[in-house]
């Protein structure tokens, strides 16, 4: 989701923000202490929600205890193209506990939402569930059965007989080339770009490299399958959801049901991972709602693991042709990156592999193109660094190949082509420490000891390979709002309709409040994942930190101002009658500047004296002019060691050292974990992950966690994650200075692994994953 337009989300315009432009135009005197690093901000801080998670008390979507809840089971198409001819539910209807069946011939009318990302009405797939009898892909929802218990619902669903008119599906990209087209844009970003003369410069280049790299279709597979629990109270709907976007879920579900947004309440305090597949809103959230209305009882719909392979998106396979031309000194003279991906018959989502290539290196001649075909597979969706991740696999593999042709060290090659500005947008970077990343990671890794010759390094019988790649991801930001309350007992609360899918938002929210108000983290409670709270953007595009934390600091400032005004207006206060700018705050006390803090009052005393329960501040901030002046981008370097046992075709990643420049690191504890997270998912991408479709009927043959291999503990070696940790001076005006972290950490990993495999073996593998069958001849 490469939205960097900086425009506000219309529906999220906060009612109390009368300026309409947020903080960019609102530079009131800042009463808050500077983020000096003396508090918890920037320091390792244990997770605020840690105890709930280790005791089993954290409630995920399917965990909420709801009285009289009944169970729904979805029936999915077993064909990938055609029509539903007949649905025979007669046996199911007689099954014990049966309550209802819904399908295209028997469902309330549903409506297509406006499908607009900025107004938070973008569904995962624009075709509405049960819209008609057409089948476009295997796994499409055909019917929903509701029964008293889960066992009864499963059994009743198994009794429903569905007849289809079968049409031959198109699954393979080669077979779909008659549908190929050039998509125009992806979330506002053009998918075709050219500067200079990429063809002519390539023809004239001293050293050339051209190759095609491919990545397979992949699935997110968060550990928590999506679930939706619906409960109607009159015409008001509460949905217990697992969503990366409570505001989006509210707006999209409301529009799909044809009811006002105010009637829909999304509750999603904990999300069992998402990685993109819970970003947009998928049909199950609507299915539980209409089923609940139908049976007059709360309904729980918990997707199966198998359903997760067709019901909430995937990453398209990619085929990427990369062509590089360089002068003998390694300076890039031509880059061309041409991407072919798949999308579905019913909607468009483009894995935009080339957009990163536009700016990652300095080069006068660059050409980017994207093409798509339509296949009978469900609609793709963002999956951890959509575009950047497979895109960097191709580009960074190609650069490694070029480095060998040039006989230049791969790190040195990248430094020689360092982009001092964003040559695509012609903007200076807001901040960029990529060279520091190379240096820090290379030193820690011991890169200087690398013999570049393939097959030259050994550990006994094992071939050792060292490879590296650049990592990058945009520094996105969207409008965000929050409220902070200082309570009469001196504690505080902070709320925002943001989400925490494991990145640590609960904790960073508290850290910001703690430092701003001088209240210990233990005395602050953060609340999120509820659509009734002040709106925040999707937890996607690595934008939560940059979007929400500045608003929280702003809210702290307003709350503190109100507290100061309360003290000034209180005849019994030592601050009575002072001017606002004569008062300052420190460690939970307000007092007259220049005097001893003990001469003032604690927050609790100020409120108690006026018999007030609390003061509340609101913050609503959005990106502004800075987005026109600067390019915001995070960078990093991934260094990987592999050891390959050529006698048994086994490759294992044995060491990874990575360094990232993501601006300020708010919480080194959770940031490091996010580093591990992306690297490990990248190892999975490099060595094992691929979803397999049977070309004959379009079904997924490995739609389970035994056959779709993701890394297990034994696959993961010692990892080291380093951060430059220098604040981005322009991303916000509240001194937070943090860009997101969730996605950059996976970018470049697969390329670094593949480059290490080449270094170990002399064999270049250009199609992922690097499974044993591709290592038989090393």
């Amino acid at each position, binding site marked *: 989701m490469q939205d960097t337009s900086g425009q506000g989300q219309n529906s999220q315009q906060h009612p109390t923000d009368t300026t309409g432009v947020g903080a960019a135009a609102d530079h009131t005197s800042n009463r808050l202490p500077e983020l000096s690093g003396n508090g918890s901000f920037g320091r390792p801080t244990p997770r605020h929600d840690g105890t709930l998670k280790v005791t089993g008390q954290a409630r995920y979507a399917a965990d909420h205890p709801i009285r009289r809840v009944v169970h729904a089971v979805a029936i999915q198409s077993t064909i990938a193209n055609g029509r539903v001819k007949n649905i025979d539910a007669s046996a199911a209807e007689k099954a014990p506990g049966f309550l209802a069946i819904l399908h295209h011939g028997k469902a309330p009318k549903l409506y297509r939402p406006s499908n607009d990302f900025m107004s938070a009405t973008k569904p995962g797939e624009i075709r509405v569930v049960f819209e008609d009898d057409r089948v476009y892909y295997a796994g499409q929802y055909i019917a929903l059965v509701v029964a008293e218990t889960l*066992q009864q619902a499963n059994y009743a669903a*198994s009794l429903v007989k569905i007849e289809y008119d079968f049409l031959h599906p198109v699954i393979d990209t080669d077979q779909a080339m008659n549908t190929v087209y050039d998509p125009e844009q992806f979330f506002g970003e053009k998918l075709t770009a050219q500067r200079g003369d990429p063809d002519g410069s390539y023809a004239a280049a001293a050293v050339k490299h051209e190759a095609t790299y491919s990545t397979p279709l992949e699935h997110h597979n968060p550990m928590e399958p999506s679930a939706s629990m619906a409960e109607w109270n009159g015409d008001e709907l509460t949905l217990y959801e697992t969503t990366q976007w409570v505001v989006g879920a509210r707006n999209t579900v409301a529009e799909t049901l044809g009811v006002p947004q105010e009637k829909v309440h999304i509750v999603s305090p904990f999300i069992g991972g998402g990685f993109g597949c819970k970003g947009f809103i998928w049909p199950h959230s609507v299915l539980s709602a209409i089923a609940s209305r139908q049976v007059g009882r709360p309904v729980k719909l918990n997707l199966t693991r198998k359903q997760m392979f067709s019901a909430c998106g995937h990453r398209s396979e990619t085929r990427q042709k990369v062509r590089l031309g360089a002068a003998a000194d390694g300076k890039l003279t031509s880059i061309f990156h041409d991407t072919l991906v798949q999308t579905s018959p019913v909607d468009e989502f483009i894995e935009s592999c080339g957009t990163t290539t536009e700016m990652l290196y300095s080069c006068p001649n660059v050409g980017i193109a994207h093409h798509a075909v339509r296949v009978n597979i469900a609609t793709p969706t963002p999956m951890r660094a959509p575009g950047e991740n497979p895109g960097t696999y191709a580009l960074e593999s190609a650069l490694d190949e070029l480095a060998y042709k040039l006989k230049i060290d791969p790190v040195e090659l990248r430094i020689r082509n360092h982009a001092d500005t964003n040559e695509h947008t012609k903007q200076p970077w807001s901040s960029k420490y990529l060279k520091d990343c190379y240096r820090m990671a290379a030193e820690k890794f011991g890169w200087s000891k690398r013999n570049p010759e393939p097959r030259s390094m050994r550990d006994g019988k094992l071939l050792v390979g060292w490879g590296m790649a650049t990592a990058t991801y945009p520094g996105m930001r969207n409008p965000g709002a929050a409220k902070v309350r200082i309570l009469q007992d001196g504690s505080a609360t902070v709320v925002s309709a943001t989400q925490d899918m494991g990145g640590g938002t609960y904790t960073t929210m508290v850290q910001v409040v703690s430092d701003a108000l001088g209240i210990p983290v233990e005395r602050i409670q953060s609340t999120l994942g509820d659509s009734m709270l002040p709106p925040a953007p999707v937890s996607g595009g690595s934008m939560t930190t940059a979007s929400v934390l500045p608003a929280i600091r702003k809210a702290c400032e307003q709350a503190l101002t109100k507290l100061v005004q309360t003290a000034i207006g209180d005849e019994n206060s030592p601050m009575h009658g002072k001017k606002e700018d004569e008062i300052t705050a420190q460690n939970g006390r307000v007092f007259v500047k220049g005097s001893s803090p003990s001469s003032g009052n604690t927050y609790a005393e100020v409120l108690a004296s006026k018999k007030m329960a609390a003061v509340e501040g609101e913050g609503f901030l959005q990106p502004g002019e800075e987005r026109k002046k600067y390019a915001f981008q995070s960078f990093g370097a991934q260094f990987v060691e592999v050891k390959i046992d050529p006698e*048994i075709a086994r490759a294992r990643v044995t060491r990874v050292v990575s360094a990232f420049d993501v601006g300020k690191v708010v919480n080194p504890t959770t940031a490091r974990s996010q580093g591990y997270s992306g690297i490990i998912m990248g190892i999975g991408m490099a*060595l094992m992950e691929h979803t397999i479709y*049977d070309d*004959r009927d379009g079904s997924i*043959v490995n739609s389970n966690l035994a*056959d779709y291999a993701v*890394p*297990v503990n034994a696959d993961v070696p010692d990892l080291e994650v380093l951060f430059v940790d220098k604040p981005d001076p322009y991303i916000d005006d509240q001194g937070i200075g943090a860009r997101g972290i969730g996605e950059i950490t996976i970018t470049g990993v697969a390329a670094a692994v593949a480059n290490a495999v080449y270094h170990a073996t002399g064999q270049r593998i250009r199609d992922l994953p690097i499974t044993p069958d591709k290592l038989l001849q090393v």
Partner: protein
Amino acid sequence: MQPFSFTQARSEDEAMAQLRQNSRFIAGGTTLVDLMKLDVETPAHLVDINALSLNKIETLADGSLRIGAMVRNSDLAHDAAVIKNFPVLSQALLAGASAQLRNMATTGGNLLQRTRCYYFRDPAYAACNKRRPGSGCAALEGFNRIHAVLGGSEHCVATHPSDMAVAMVALDAVVHIRGPKGERQVKIEDFHKLPGTTPQIETVVEPGELITYVTLPKSAFSTRSAYVKLRDRASYEFALASAAVALDLNGKTIRSARLALGGVATKPWRSHEAEQALTGGQASDQAFRAAAEAAMKSARPLRYNGFKIELAKMALVRALNEAAQL
């Protein structure tokens, strides 16, 4: 899942007596519950045999090891006698599944483990001769990367997924079966059946019969044994290819050998050809490679699984090297 009735048996006699039409014994449940959820197995009645006292590992007077059918995989893997005298079995067990599943899965149940063939496990596929005899085989022309290169027929190419059984083949195990007609013993090599024209018949176990014990005879080769398993990830995954080997060495001379393969064949696969190639010769990397060639000589690749032939050879050579410790 289909409704079913359930009874619990406290003895072998009770277990037999509780059988009804379309019944299954349930022990660890790791295969049966899984397949019942997929509607691949649809028993009307389950007889729970977890309370049976077949849960002991005993060294008999003749030095053989008697393993009760209800002994859990984890207990068998960590048994001191197994680790000392039959290391290949311990290694194979620990290479299988996960610690949790090994705490559930039983010795008898593991022998009856059913294939991981995608098409067998998904009733949406009409064609599966194992599930619906005579319906065809979706895997033959389908995505068959995980399927068999040895022992397949035009009716079925599904692999047997067990690691334990492969090790037992290399140990000349004997399966003890009790049924209405009394008790019988079957050599493990004969226990599993090739698919042929009847892939739905996977073992010699008849309806109404119960596996009671597996015995491992004392042999000159069982202590010098090893298991090697190759797969896409490091753990918690079925084999693409695995090898169990046991060697009786006199110095470097191979007096006798047992070689079995997993992940590549329709049953736990003993390679007499490879054993013959080794017997009487000198243990060497070259001899091991020749044996591996012999083992895979009759392999028949399908569209996506040709790599398994080479991979199986690699597993065999590695296992032989580990067992011989040259």
